């Protein structure tokens, strides 16, 4: 029974909304969408609401969104989210919080906000683009302003105690996900990269207590499962955001087991813990500000490369696949720098440009992945 329930963790990613969200709503709960790993979800959770990470799942084309974010210059992931908003798929949200993560998401938010029918609470929580003490202070103030506005709007109060509880719950998730990540880096990993992604996407789509409970069951089940050893090569996947298991499945069907990543629906999401003693807002903001940085944090390449290199070692990676969604310059340029750094250390890399989800041209993607695996001699 429990094991069956735990299967939800691997299927929630297939639809935008899900039974958990629906019953949450039915019980009068509010759902708040958010777009980026620089958004401290704990605040939403501590207010008794459900944070739901925005995805492009189920989008079959972006014709409506393309009239706002253009297909000649803007990212297909951002366009897919906007399309779902424009077609009413996100009507279940009571509010949306964006960060100025990149040019595309920023503008995606603004175009959404300009529509007639939007969730009643639309908020932009800007994050500095550099990692400095002053920047942390700025971010701390921004998060506090968000918290106040949010509390006022919804008539709720997020106490220090409830915030500490939420942090504790989220930290539990993070340590559980680290255990999961460990299973995947073994010599014969207990789960595929696609499964890992599925489980991660679920974390951002359902109530957290429930998720932690199921994740423990899942971890139990996975660690008793036979390890996978019939793969051709161990791959690390880096680059643009991805919530679509099909991308990872493409690589794994060709024989490349994805054993590590530094994606924002991946290791970067859960890697760093929040300090639980002391002022919860200070702890929370420090963690979200300094967590494994996204390429949008300028001047933090070293931190990112350090994370990447240690991850390749830990997971004993044969090759790194770097992908970027078309027009994603943050990852596009970052990938060029990663390529240079890794190839210098003798780690083979493959650089791919892709479109998100339904817009992908899988045949061409597959050919390149296969050739890369052949290059790895596997």
């Amino acid at each position: 029974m429990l094991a069956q329930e735990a299967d939800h963790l691997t299927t929630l990613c297939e639809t935008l909304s899900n039974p958990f969200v629906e019953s949450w709503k039915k019980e009068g709960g509010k759902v708040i969408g958010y777009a980026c790993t620089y958004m401290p979800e704990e605040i939403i959770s501590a207010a008794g609401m459900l944070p739901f990470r925005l995805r492009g799942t189920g989008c079959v084309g972006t014709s409506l969104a393309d009239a706002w974010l253009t297909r000649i210059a803007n990212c297909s992931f951002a366009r897919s989210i906007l399309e779902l908003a424009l077609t009413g798929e996100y009507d279940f949200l009571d509010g949306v919080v964006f960060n100025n993560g990149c040019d595309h998401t920023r503008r995606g938010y603004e175009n959404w906000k300009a529509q007639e029918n939007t969730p009643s609470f639309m908020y932009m929580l800007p994050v500095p683009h550099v990692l400095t003490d002053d920047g942390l202070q700025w971010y701390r103030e921004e998060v506090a302003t968000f918290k106040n506005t949010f509390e006022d709007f919804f008539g709720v109060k997020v106490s220090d105690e409830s915030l500490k509880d939420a942090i504790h719950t989220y930290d539990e998730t993070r340590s559980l996900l680290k255990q999961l990540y460990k299973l995947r880096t073994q010599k014969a990993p207990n789960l595929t990269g696609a499964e890992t992604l599925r489980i991660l996407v679920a974390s951002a789509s359902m109530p957290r207590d429930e998720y932690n409970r199921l994740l423990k069951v899942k971890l139990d089940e996975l660690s008793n499962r036979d390890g996978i050893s019939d793969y051709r090569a161990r791959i690390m996947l880096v680059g643009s955001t991805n919530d679509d298991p099909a991308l990872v499945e493409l690589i794994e069907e060709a024989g490349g087991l994805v054993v590590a990543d530094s994606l924002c629906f991946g290791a970067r999401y859960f890697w760093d813990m929040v300090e639980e003693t002391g002022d919860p807002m200070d702890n929370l903001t420090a963690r979200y500000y300094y967590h494994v940085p996204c390429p949008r944090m300028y001047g933090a390449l070293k931190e990112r490369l350090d994370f990447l290199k240690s991850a390749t070692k830990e997971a004993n990676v044969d090759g790194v696949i770097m992908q970027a969604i078309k027009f994603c310059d943050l990852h596009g340029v970052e990938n060029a720098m990663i390529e240079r750094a890794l190839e210098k250390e003798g780690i083979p890399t493959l650089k791919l440009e892709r479109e998100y989800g339904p817009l992908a041209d899988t045949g061409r993607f597959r050919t390149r992945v296969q050739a890369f695996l052949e290059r790895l001699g596997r």
Partner: protein
Amino acid sequence: MVRTPTLWEETSALMGGVAALPEDVSALEELAKGLPPDAASLLKGFTNPHYIKMSITGLKIFNTALTSVLERRSQGGKVAFYCFSFPRELLDAMDMAPVCTEAAGIIPVLALGCEEYIDAPINAGLPDSICGGHKATVGMIVEQAEITPDVIINAGPGSCDPNAKLHEWMAETWDVPLLNLDAPYYHDDRSFRYYRREFRRMVERLEEINGQKLDYDRLKEILEDSNEQIRLYWEIQDLKKAKPYPLSNIYCVLVELMKYIWSGRPEAIEYFRIARDTAKSLVEKGEGAFPNQRARTLWTYSGIYFDMELFRWLEEIGVAFVQDCFGWYPDKVIDTSSIDTMIDGLADRTLNQPMTRQHKGAWDGPAGWAEDMMFLARELDIDACIYSGNLACKQTWGCLRLMTDKLKNEMGIPTLRLETDILDKRVTPTPVIKEQIEEFVSNLA
């Protein structure tokens, strides 16, 4: 060992003829005849007879600015690369050799074409969606290491991802310090206070790198010159309101260039003075800078630079290039009474640089793209907008619909949407652009 900066020198050598040019259109045309197509079409952009004096002053700066950096370096000045939205006066005051990253590539592109260099960054593994403003520069670096920086400054990361990322890439390539000044999302007192602290930290780092303290007397001297330039700029902004339009279209293009590569220097001040005088005398006579004017246009992004002749052609079809976003410098005169007022003044000015100002925050926020463009459209009595559609610009493409709707619905001003690379003529060639502008303008009537 220092390698020969061939591209810059080539440009300078090719255009060397401008140094001795008399203030005479036919002499300019004669010089153009002997040049290869790219350089010739560049010169032809400067042939408005009323503005020949201003044009030649501008061309001379165009021609010597980059090579003069090499001179400064040979005298021991540290080379500082900076993204265009930065007051270069500070670097002058520190006796550094300032190189505007965008101009470093743009200038040779305009004179030489340089397609090979434009393509080189892609060969270096960068995505081809990066900005044409950087492609040639990066190309030169990859292909021949034209000049290497000792430090790189980016004063507005967050206002443009490809821009900030490219500066990061360059810093990583040469392993030199990258000074990012975090431009906050808002445009309020708190933001300016935050940014002033950022700016001060940068000055300290520059002093370390440069091995000497900033000479405040020298800064004062330079800023006073620069203030003079700002006063002239505002006078001209006022003259722009006149009908018929009293400035040559090339004025706006050169404003940008002056700001990027020569701001605050005597030749630049001279440039603005001549422009002011010429415009003033035309306004007094009730004349326009060119005949048969039929549309006053606001370019909501920038102009299109790979073919400067386009600006002269616009004059020929009666279209005034009144303003563009990249030439909009809402600068204030800096109070030079103390060190603090100067540094704070520079910091404030930096946060108001084009692109940083309009795109660091919300498109419709204070000093955002919409506010600035609506203000300019109203202030300068604009008939139509042209969006030059640089394909690398995710920011503006991402809210273009919002912007055009606002201009259309609130002010009745139509916008022409072009799709170009403003520096790569192969993306959308001039004839195609001309055709679209012609049709757009004819539909305005």
